[in-house]
């Protein structure tokens, strides 16, 4: 199940990079939360993002997904500059993310949550057609539901397809978030602490999904995770952040042996 962490990261060069960050700076008021971060992720690569509290991991995720615009620097998605593009446009261009605090659509059932991941494609007459339940519109929905059912099956959610997501335990809710993010096959998937709150079995199921996506699709993934074991065993490459800057970058084995990283966590001077 584990990725062979000794091999070179897949791709790695900017030629095949799905996501490239160049000199990202984020300031809130007078505080610099992210200070000149650059890295890139290649298609099919799983990148782990770790660092002590306040290192700027979530801020960086917000910058990548467009929830927050950087004060300086450039975000490139599949060769296109998206630094100032809205999160909606980025999502439509193939970037999907999950959240540290699960953000399922609690009003909707599990299958509708996942279907919402395809809804942006529209078609069939738009909102006016919605009001009169126009057949063309309904046909599209039926087609999309087939794809939804496949993904539900894949994520082990078929049994709860009709349940409102607000009633789900955390492990299943995280799976719903993941299913919603992959139903429209993404080119870049951002997972923010996907393992937090999960039981051991659930964690294994999640890891299996991450492995499957990495092996079977060309989707690039970025993981933020506190569970070091999870990161070490699932990522090709790790970027360590400290107070807003990249402290180290390398394979899991390299990071584990890196003295600077130990210092960052332990505060040895």
């Amino acid at each position: 199940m584990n990725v062979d962490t000794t091999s070179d990261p897949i791709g790695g060069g900017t030629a095949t990079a799905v996501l490239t960050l160049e000199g990202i700076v984020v300031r809130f008021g007078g505080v610099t939360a992210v200070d000149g971060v650059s890295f890139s992720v290649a298609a099919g690569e799983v990148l782990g993002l770790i660092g002590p509290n306040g290192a700027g991991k979530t801020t960086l995720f917000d910058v990548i997904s467009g929830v927050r615009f950087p004060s300086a620097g450039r975000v490139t998605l599949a060769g296109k500059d998206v630094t100032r593009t809205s999160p909606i446009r980025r999502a439509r261009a193939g970037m999907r993310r999950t959240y540290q605090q699960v953000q399922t659509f609690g009003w909707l059932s599990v299958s509708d949550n996942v279907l919402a991941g395809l809804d942006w494609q529209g078609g069939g007459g738009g909102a006016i057609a919605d009001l009169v339940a126009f057949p063309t519109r309904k046909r599209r929905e039926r087609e999309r539901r087939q794809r939804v059912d496949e993904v539900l099956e894949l994520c082990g959610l078929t049994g709860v397809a009709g349940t409102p997501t607000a009633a789900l335990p955390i492990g299943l809710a995280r799976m719903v978030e993941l299913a919603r993010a992959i139903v429209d096959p993404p080119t870049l998937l951002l997972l923010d602490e996907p393992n937090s709150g999960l039981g051991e079995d659930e964690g294994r199921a999640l890891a299996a999904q991450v492995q499957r996506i990495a092996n079977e699709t060309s989707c690039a993934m970025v993981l933020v995770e506190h569970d070091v074991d999870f990161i070490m065993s699932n990522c090709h490459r790790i970027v360590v952040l400290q107070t807003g800057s990249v402290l180290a970058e390398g394979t899991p084995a390299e990071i584990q042996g890196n003295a600077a990283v130990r210092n960052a966590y332990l505060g040895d001077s």
Partner: protein
Amino acid sequence: MTTFLSLVVSGAVSGGIYAIMASGLVLSYEASGIFNFAQGAVAFATAFLFFQLNTGQGWPIGWAALLSILVFAPVLGFLLDRILLRRLASAPVHARIVGTIGLLVALPNLVLFIAEQINLRGGDLPSSTGLGTVPGLGPVPSTTWTLMHGVVLNSDQIIIFVVAALSALGLWVLLRRTRLGLQMRADVDKRELAGLRGIDSGRVSAISWILTMLLAGLAGVMLGPFIGLDDITYTFVVLGCLAAVVFAGFRSLPFAFIGGLLLGIIQNLVAGYADNFLPSFIAGVSGLRTAVPFLLTLVGLFVLARRRGRAGGTASNEAPQPDHRDGLPKWRRWLPWIITVTALIVYVQFIADTFWSGLVLNGVVIGVVFLSFVVVTGIGGMVSLMQATFVTVGGFAAGWLVKHQYSSTTPVLMDNGHLNFFVAAILATLFAALIGALVAIPVRRLGTLAFALGTLSIAFIADLLFFQIDSIRNGSLGYLMNSPKLFGFEFTSNQSLTMMALVIFGIVTLVIHNLEVSATGRAVFAARSSDIAARTTGLSPDRAKVIVFAVSAGIAGLGGALYAVTNSPFTNTSAPAFVGLFWLAIVVTWGVRRPAGALLAGLTFSVGSAVFVKATDWNGVLKDIVGSSYFLPILFGLGAINLAKNPDGILALSAEQRADKKRKREAKKAAALAKSAAAAGTVPARVATGVRAATPGVATGAEALRLDDVRAGYGQIEVLHGIELTLGTHGALAVLGPNGAGKSTLCKAIAGQIMLSGGAVRVGDRDMSTAATHQRAQAGLLVIPESRGIFPGLTVEENLAIRLTEQSELEAAYAHFPILKERRKGAAGLLSGGEQQLLALAPALVRPPAVLIADEPTLGLSPKATEAVYETLEEVRGLGCAVLLVEERATHALNFADTVAVMSLGRITWAGTRDEVDSERLASAYLGGDIDLTEPPALEPTPPVVPLTPPDD
């Protein structure tokens, strides 16, 4: 010049009233998060009482004012806080809005109702409440003075100036010069920290409501002589101060006060000079002066929305309300519908006379209007206070279309050279939807409250300005409509019209259902659950909101067209903005999420008042009470207050009871099952999963802090899985661990900021497991939270004074940290990070707590500042205070603490003295590796007890 000065002076008078009202609104909004739409209702109620005491009972002004302003209004504020407002504070924003709107509807009617009932029972309360008969605080008749340039002032006006100035001064003294004021400002500045410093937020909220109501009552009594005693006028005038509230950004008291004064002056100047700069058709409209504040409010809201900009991830996420119909079979859901509609049809067709069938017809038509609330509030989660405006738009549009002569004679479409009503109604629907979209596009990004205030302002502006223009309203007589015709059939009887309305109601219900289960509906529900997740899934919440709002406007417009044809002539007063508030209250009472609620609400609205008319035939008390015109508004006002938190309203009650019963049955079954399992011994006892961390020198009686099997987390996520630790009265325990281990959660659980799901927290010998944050602080717990335990908006000295009440204590703190004395008048937020941390720690040096908890006190500090913080911690410890230090970076913490606990994924995985700490073991906790942390050598608490005098606090 004289005109100008007169306008300014008299403007400043109404400005004084605005200033007082706006201050009150800002005060209570800041302290409780509730915007009080009922401010005018409270003002009215107080003024009414004052009038009855003074004019009615002949009390002298002083005594009447004392009882009404200083007793009645504050007591009302206190009771409302206890009964209503505190309960609302935790409700979703739209429930908070609906709650105070319910109060706005109920309170004035309740007051008038009581007066009416007293008179019916032989009382002799005066009822002449028109202009010129209502006294203010000044002498009656008022004395008049002429100032320079011929500016005239009377005693009532001067009293307003003086009282406004005095209340500004009073508020200033209270907030700046008293301990209570300091606590209130601290609470507003940073609520979580206020609790940690022993400030009771509930008490602060209650006091701010008492003050707000006092100010409302004060302004209300002074307003009387100028506007008479009419509750609607009161609400209009008081809501006018909205502009000042918005000008103050909902938070600055001085700005609210100045804004209020300016508003009064601007309003007067605009009205006075309108002829000079506005086109005559606007300048001539009588409502212009009253509309000015609402125009300014609208402008202010947009400026505010633009300035705050798009704040990522700040949209409020709303937890879904359970639908108790889940699990019911389809026929069971439809059954009540079929029965109701069949009964209605049978009644109208065969039983009812013209009077009653007319009322049913009206009820169904209003029901169509109410369906628009189901869309905008029930589905969209937005509170629109301008639905009545769309009704008027629809009615006017249909009227205008039908009125005009066309040369075409197309059958079906045309009818004697006039457009067929049904065609006109469809076009009116589209027109109203278009207007709705035009309104929604700019206001869609406003938050829920700003959206409600924005739509309210637009509704008032439309009423006061646009609908006053003769070419729009077709003169004061409005539009006359003939009976609708379709394929040669003329709908003239109430019976046929009711059928028509029912069919339309059915079609609209179907459209709503389609919308709900469509992609657009999913996008709306998605955005309500999580706006940001919807965006990052590629959905557009803005677009979905505009569509929903436009659909709701269209439905209201269609309702307006129907209303126009069944209640011809349709005028600009057929559906005033004000009645829209009452509508909202009724719909919410019945249930805003379902079309059935809209139908029942419509029928109640229409038939209800007639029942009360019929009640005149009855006898006795019931007739007096039910027959009162105030009864219905009171009923539904109170209903809205009660049901604001429940979107399914009355309709949900029976379903809820059914669901409750089912839950109880299942719980009983589960309990029985567990019992038998336990008896059979199949359930293993819970195994403690962590290690107890205990400082040396702990024995019974000498524990400063003790945690037993503490479990806590956020929502469903349990973060702490059974933490056990004991801190001796002199102990210093360092909790280390990587981020995500649950260290900050541990601090919050100890402080009471998150509730425990299991286990116990004891401070000294007191069980504090369920105590509120401020109670734990008062019991001797001082928590310095992550990211600085200071109030950034207060000055350095005020920060210290929250804990250090004596001047000598302040001096002692300054003696320790001269830098704080230098900066004592400056805002604490402007200090450097290190200075802020010293400021947070300084009170502990002067008045040591029993337990000090510091959560990453050196995060982001320079090495020098870090040294200073640790020196201070050492000193605090030297004063006999137990210290629990949470750190991610280990080095300094290891030098400071005598005992170390390592946390990982919500458990204490290792504990021991600092000499036993092995850096390899520590590293593996952070970076993973081979060392198995699940079975570490546990530390036995070393026995020798050092009983010491407990630190005073």
